[in-house]
């Protein structure tokens, strides 16, 4: 149970959203116009849908807390005795810590790799490619999203890992002085950098699709304003398109990050896990993610183990929520300059 697709936080697609009409309704001092017929029905439908999402979210949160409670409150020594896979951790917290670390590191890695590429593709599609090619390319990128994550896992483990292994070896030899690339490079390349690469491919479509839509919505007026000042195409993109799309890009990246945080199968099938706070991206047995760990342990878990696993799920839920809220905050910070007025 992960919370990647916690619905209300699906970041807004498109340029800075206008204030939702629902919020304006009933503002004090405003004359309330009576809705009639369809209009009223639609209002209830919209309100209902909004409420439903909140209810689902609350239900998930309650479920996680209730189920995780036994593990959270269990005395540490008993918990360690009952849950075999705590890997020598002295408490639940010291077990969850490295998992959170691994999860965030893998997702950040994926985001770091995917965002520039996705933005490049999106810009190419929206502003450079001839119209025919643009449509085709957009379609191909969308297809990437249709590939099941199991397939990504298989591909990553069987094809990509052997393929990139020599590159990782080279990285380890030449850039080994950088902490990220230090240590004994794994001969199988079942390491976090490979995982990051696969996750990057997986989140590429969503980031590309969202940012492409945002780029396409740049007002023609602003693009022409830049061009008329003597901007080259790239300068036009820098002065008119990117600033306009800023909040949309952040939303896109956060959607991608959300997906990467919760991705299970691909990580499970590729990564050789470990439970350390380790930045070594090329060494096997260093990190593990929350989602992959749950999937790996769930089948043979006792009730207390399940509870402990759900506690880790709760941590993931909180992280995802936090990521989304940070994104919201970043988006709203420069509202004045967003062009929504």
């Amino acid at each position, binding site marked *: 149970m992960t919370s990647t697709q916690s619905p209300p936080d699906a970041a807004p697609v498109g340029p800075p959203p206008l204030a939702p009409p629902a919020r304006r309704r009933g503002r004090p001092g405003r004359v309330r116009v009576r809705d009639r017929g369809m209009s009223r029905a639609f209002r209830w439908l919209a309100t209902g849908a909004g409420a439903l999402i909140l209810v689902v979210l609350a239900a998930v949160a309650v479920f996680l807390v209730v189920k995780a409670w036994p593990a959270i409150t269990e005395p540490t020594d008993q918990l360690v005795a009952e849950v075999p896979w705590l890997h020598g951790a002295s408490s639940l917290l010291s077990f969850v810590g490295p998992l959170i670390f691994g999860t965030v590191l893998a997702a950040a890695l994926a985001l770091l790799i995917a965002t520039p590429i996705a933005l490049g593709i999106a810009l190419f599609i929206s502003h450079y490619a001839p119209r025919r090619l643009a449509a085709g390319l957009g379609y191909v990128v969308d297809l990437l999203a249709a590939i099941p994550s199991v397939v990504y896992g298989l591909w990553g483990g069987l094809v990509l890992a052997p393929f990139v292994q020599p590159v990782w070896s080279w990285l380890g030899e030449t850039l080994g002085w950088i902490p990220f690339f230090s240590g004994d490079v794994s001969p199988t390349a079942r390491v976090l950098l490979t995982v990051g690469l696969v996750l990057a491919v997986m989140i590429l479509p969503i980031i590309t699709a969202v940012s492409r839509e945002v780029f396409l919505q740049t007002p023609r007026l602003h693009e022409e304003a830049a061009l008329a000042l003597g901007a080259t195409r790239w300068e036009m993109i820098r002065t008119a398109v990117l*600033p306009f799309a800023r909040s949309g890009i952040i939303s896109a990246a956060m959607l991608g990050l959300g997906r990467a945080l919760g991705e299970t199968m691909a990580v499970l099938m590729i990564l050789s896990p470990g439970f350390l706070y380790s930045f070594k991206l090329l060494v096997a047995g260093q990190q593990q993610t929350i989602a992959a760990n749950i999937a790996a342990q769930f089948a043979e878990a006792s009730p207390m183990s399940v509870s402990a696993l759900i506690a880790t799920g709760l941590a993931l839920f909180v992280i995802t929520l936090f990521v989304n809220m940070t994104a919201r905050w970043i988006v709203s910070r420069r509202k004045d300059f967003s062009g929504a007025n």
Partner: protein
Amino acid sequence: MAQRIDVKDLNIYYGDFKAVADVGMAIEPRSVTAFIGPSGCGKSTFLRTLNRMHEVIPGAHVEGTVAVDGVDLYGADVDPVAVRRQVGMVFQRPNPFPTMSIEENVLAGVRLNNKRISKSDAADLVEVSLRSANLWTEVKDRLNRPGSGLSGGQQQRLCIARAIAVKPQVLLMDEPCSALDPISTLAIEDLISELKSAYTIVIVTHNMQQAARVSDRTAFFNLAGVGQPGRLVEIDDTGTIFSSPREQATEDYISGRFG
């Protein structure tokens, strides 16, 4: 700095559609030339060929020559980006960059053209440009606020300031006052009269009084029928056009008998 423009045998197309045919005219430096004519006759289209903005629309192209100081803008080795740096443009709807402050808006063109400009030079340029656009006193205390927070008339003057900050040779204005109230309109008309001592100005307008008030020369465009290309009917001194035009069509249009 102002330069003359000579247009010869210009045909303007959107894909296969010929929007404007056979335009030829001379635009004098340090003067204001007004384009009038019924909607759809190709005034905006023609105006946009004077700084090669026409071709940013997919499929749009032209035949013929537009020479600024003797150099054909459509010559094989002319860079449209360079042309647009020489020939500034103000659009019908005010379009300050919404993500930029007032100050950044004024400097936007300069930042593109010569990347480096010292802080004090930039501040001076902002003040001079805003002063020439008659906007300085209204915004000098909020240069860091977004440009989109100004009124429509102020935004339009901000756009004018942005256009003249790069010191173009020619300034094109497409119905710059059509979204503005009479007071802002007057402010911009005054501004045009001041600017013409330094720039060659071309303005499209639907407002006859405005054309009569601000321009030295007036060009009348007309449309033979739907689907037909627009044509230049006549261009003459503004006084002549409004008192004794050569063509009957011009007189009909000006006296409001159609269009």
